[in-house]
Structure formats: structure tokens, C-alpha cells
């Protein structure tokens, strides 16, 4: 936990820009895609307006992006460029403290971002159930399901070339095809199971269920279990790669 404080100090420098972005993006996305593009979509999507369909998916997708961003370059910087992790390890902090602190910070960032997102969704009139509040913890979990394994990956990298691969073949396709913008039933048959296997699909589906007020209990449990397992596996792997990298 103590190592989380570092990231807070870091954030002091950039919070203004970052908070502005956290407000601006949802407004832009919901207006352009939800209202603009949505006005062209006459019928209903999965039984609701397009805007209502889209908004919870965007919340989960944003959580994924934050989780991914915060566990790539910042981890590399803390190992190679600024060597912050090594400064921490010269103090009573242990490798686990360093890892948990960084992940806790990412979770806190996710809390800020998803809360803001939900507030803006409410302003756009897309929140249809008190259960929607639970989209915040689910958003955090979705973000962490990416952050933990990606941090494990980042700590094993010698340089940052692997990160663009993650964006290109991971985060961006997931953003487009995991049910954020259209139901995966629209995908060609063979792609549907692939989409369903991705973590973002589960985050999106769960958020959508909560915000619209009809999460099936069984499916919600399955989504949740998937995301929790992925986070835990990521954490265990990260513990390994961190130790290997930081303790020599």
C-alpha cells in the first residue's frame, strides 16, 4: 500500500489533464456514437435504444484501456527508465508491496474513471436501474483483468516493442469486436466463440446487464468468475515476472 503513494505523487502532476479527459471522452463518445450514429439506427438493438446499448459497453471498454495503458509504459518506466521500483526496493518495501501498490493505484484510477463515466451516462439518461452502481466495481474488475496479466508481461520485456503488439492484436480488436458497439450475434459464426472467450466481452455483458437492470444471475456469475480468475492468474504471473526482474 505504501508504494501506492508514489503513484499518487506522480498523479499530482497530471491530474488536471487526466480528469478532463475522463469527463470529455464519455461525453464525446456518447454524443458522437450514441446520439449521432444512434440516430441512424432506427430499430432497437437487443431490445433497447442504441445509446442505451452502447453506453455500458463503452464504460467497460474504457476500463480495459485504462487497465492496459497503466500497466504497460508505467511498468516499463519503473523498471528501466526512472527505475522507481528499485528505489522502492531499497526501502522496507518488498516486491509484493511494489506490485500490489502499483495495481492498487490502477484500481483507484479505474474507480475514478468508471465513476465519472457512470455519472455522465446518467446525465445522458442511459441508466435504467439502481443496479447500475455495480457497474463501477465491475468496471474496475474488467480493468484489472487486463492490468494484472499485462503488468506480468511488461515486467518480462526488455523494451517496449511488445506493447504496440498488445494494442494492435489485443486491445484494439477487443474494443471493436467484443460486443461494445454491436451484439456479437452479428459476427460471423466462427468469430462468436472467439469474441465470447475474450475478457472484454464478459466485462461488457455484465456492465450492460447491470445498467439496463436485467443481469441474469447465472450468466452474471459466470462473467464475474471469468474476470476474477483472469485477474488472479495475472497477479500470480506478475509476482513471478516481477521477482525475476527486480531481485538479482
Amino acid at each position, binding site marked *: 500500500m505504501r*508504494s501506492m*503513494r508514489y503513484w499518487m*505523487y506522480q498523479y*499530482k502532476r497530471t491530474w488536471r489533464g487526466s480528469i478532463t479527459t475522463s469527463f470529455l471522452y464519455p461525453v464525446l463518445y456518447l454524443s458522437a456514437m450514441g446520439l449521432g450514429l444512434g440516430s441512424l439506427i432506427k430499430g432497437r438493438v437487443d431490445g433497447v435504444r442504441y445509446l442505451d446499448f452502447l453506453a455500458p459497453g463503452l464504460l467497460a471498454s474504457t476500463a480495459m484501456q485504462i487497465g492496459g495503458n497503466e500497466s504497460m509504459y508505467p511498468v516499463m518506466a519503473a523498471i528501466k527508465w526512472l*527505475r522507481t521500483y528499485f528505489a522502492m526496493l*531499497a*526501502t*522496507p*518495501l518488498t516486491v509484493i508491496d511494489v506490485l500490489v501498490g502499483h495495481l492498487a493505484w490502477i484500481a483507484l484510477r479505474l474507480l475514478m474513471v468508471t465513476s465519472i463515466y457512470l455519472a455522465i451516462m446518467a446525465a445522458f439518461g442511459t441508466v435504467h436501474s439502481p443496479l447500475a452502481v455495480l457497474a463501477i466495481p465491475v468496471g474496475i474488475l474488467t480493468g484489472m483483468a487486463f492490468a494484472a496479466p499485462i503488468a506480468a508481461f511488461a515486467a518480462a520485456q526488455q523494451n517496449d516493442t511488445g506493447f504496440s503488439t498488445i494494442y494492435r492484436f489485443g486491445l484494439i480488436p477487443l474494443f471493436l469486436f467484443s460486443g461494445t458497439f454491436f451484439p456479437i450475434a452479428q459476427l460471423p459464426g466462427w468469430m462468436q466463440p472467439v469474441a465470447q472467450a475474450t475478457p472484454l466481452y464478459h466485462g461488457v455483458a455484465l456492465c450492460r446487464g447491470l445498467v439496463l437492470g436485467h443481469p441474469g444471475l447465472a450468466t452474471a456469475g459466470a462473467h464475474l468468475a471469468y474476470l476474477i480468475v483472469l485477474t488472479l492468474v495475472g497477479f500470480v504471473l506478475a509476482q513471478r515476472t516481477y521477482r525475476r526482474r527486480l531481485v538479482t
Partner: protein
Amino acid sequence: MARGLTKRFGDFVAVDGIDFEIGRGESYGLLGPNGAGKTSTMRMIACMSPVSDGTLRVLGMDPAHDGSKIRGRIGIVPQEDTLDLELTVLDNLMVYGRYFDLPRRVIRERAEQLLDFTQLSERAHDKVDPLSGGMKRRLTIARSLISDPEILILDEPTTGLDPQARHLLWDRLYRLKQQGVTQIITTHYMDEAEQLCDRLAVMDGGRFAAEGAPSELIARYSTREVLELRFRDPDTDTADVAMRLEGLAERFEALPDRLLLYTDDGESTLAEVHRLGLSPDSTLIRRSTLEDVFLRLTGRSLVD
């Protein structure tokens, strides 16, 4: 305290079974060419690097079990700075102090004193990035002291500093020594080692080549004085000259333009040299220094 302390990186042995004991309040120096294993040794003492073999006790505790506790009581100045370049000078100290779980108020108080101590007060609210190398080094030192450590580990603290900053630091380290802080220092500057350290170890290839107080080492590995004979004529074969002077000194060292005679009485040796009809272009009699010991023990050839 260490017995048979060893550090391996894969098959490579960086520290090869060294023994030493450092008392409370002592200043202990590690000298040695690059790659000798100084940093590896320091990192093990600092509980930042696991011991491969042998025993190590720091403050009576075993780094394998109480690493975190031990680190809480030592201050570390790593060979390479690990400052956060994007934070301010003061914030660097604040965050670091928080890692030790110190209350904010205490850190702020100490930070003020330490910035004063390292003459950085005026830059407290500036970012670290544009500071000069010497200032960064001083900040790293201030940072290592934020937890009021009992042991201070300094890995090449003055490499890259200008003479003013170096002397300032010596002065500070001397004061810390007065306060009873144990210091373990590596350095490439022999004058620094002589100034700061009660005892020294000369390391080479992962082992101790010698250990003792600076004056002891000089007495053991060198003579009281050194007579340098310089020859301007590039054709002079100094080794040949040494042969002719056989018996005049305890030890000779023939360099391309100079011949070094290790002797206890430079004046009389010089008289002998003249008596033998030799007339070097210039001569110099000086006291033996740690540098002579160092070069004798580790050789003059460049390692890397």
C-alpha cells in the same frame, strides 16, 4: 559480518567467498577496479540482492528473513541514481520517506534539514530533471538519510562530482560518522578512501586482495616513500635502468617515461642513484599513497 559471502549470476561468480566484519560506527571502504564485485557486495549488504552462498548478518539479522526490517534501518545511495526526474526535489524526499512509513510532519522536518545539509534548499520546489549531476547525487544522498539510518551504504557517491561538491560531501559524511552512523563506501578516489575510511578492503575479481587501515595497507604493501625518476628521452629503457640500480630499492616499477623506486628513504636513495652516475631529467620524492598500494594489488592494466 560476512563469512564466505558469495554472489553468482548464473555461472558467473561476481563475489567469491569474502569474509569481513564491520563494527558499529565504523567507516569501511571497498576499493577495486570496475567489475571487482563491489556493487554486488553492497547490494547484498543492503538486502537488495539475495546471497548465493555463505553467511551474512546485518545488524544481527539475516537478510534472507528480515530484509525488510534491515532495510528500514539502513540508507542506500545506489551507484546509479533512482530519483524520480519528474517530481520536485522535495516530493522525491516526501515519497521516499513515506516508503518508510514515517509521518508526513517528520519527513517534512527532516527534508528541510537534509536539503539544508546538502545545500539544495533553494531548489526544493524545482523538478529534478534539469538539476546538475552533482545536485542529483546530493539529493540521492539526502534521500538516503531521510529515515535516519544506522548504516549508510554509499556506492561511488562522488563519481562525477566536482571538487567542491566532493569536499562538501566528505564534510557531511564526517559529521555523520561523528553521530555514530556506520558507513560502507565504494570509491575510485584513493584520497577519498584515505580521508573517509577507518578500514578498507581492496577487491579484485570478486575477492579481497587486502584489508586493513589505510596506513596499515601502505606500510604492508608499499614503502614509506617513492622516488620517481623521469626520463624525457623516449629511447631510455626504464627496465634496463632498473637493472642497473638493482638493490637500491625494495621494489622497482618501470613505466614508459618513469622509473619508480619504492624505498624508505627517498633522499639517500636519490644520492645513490647520482653516485652511480645516472642523471634523470627530473626527480621527485613523495610519500607512498594508497594509490601505490591499489596499483600494486590490482595491476596497472585496464580491465574494461
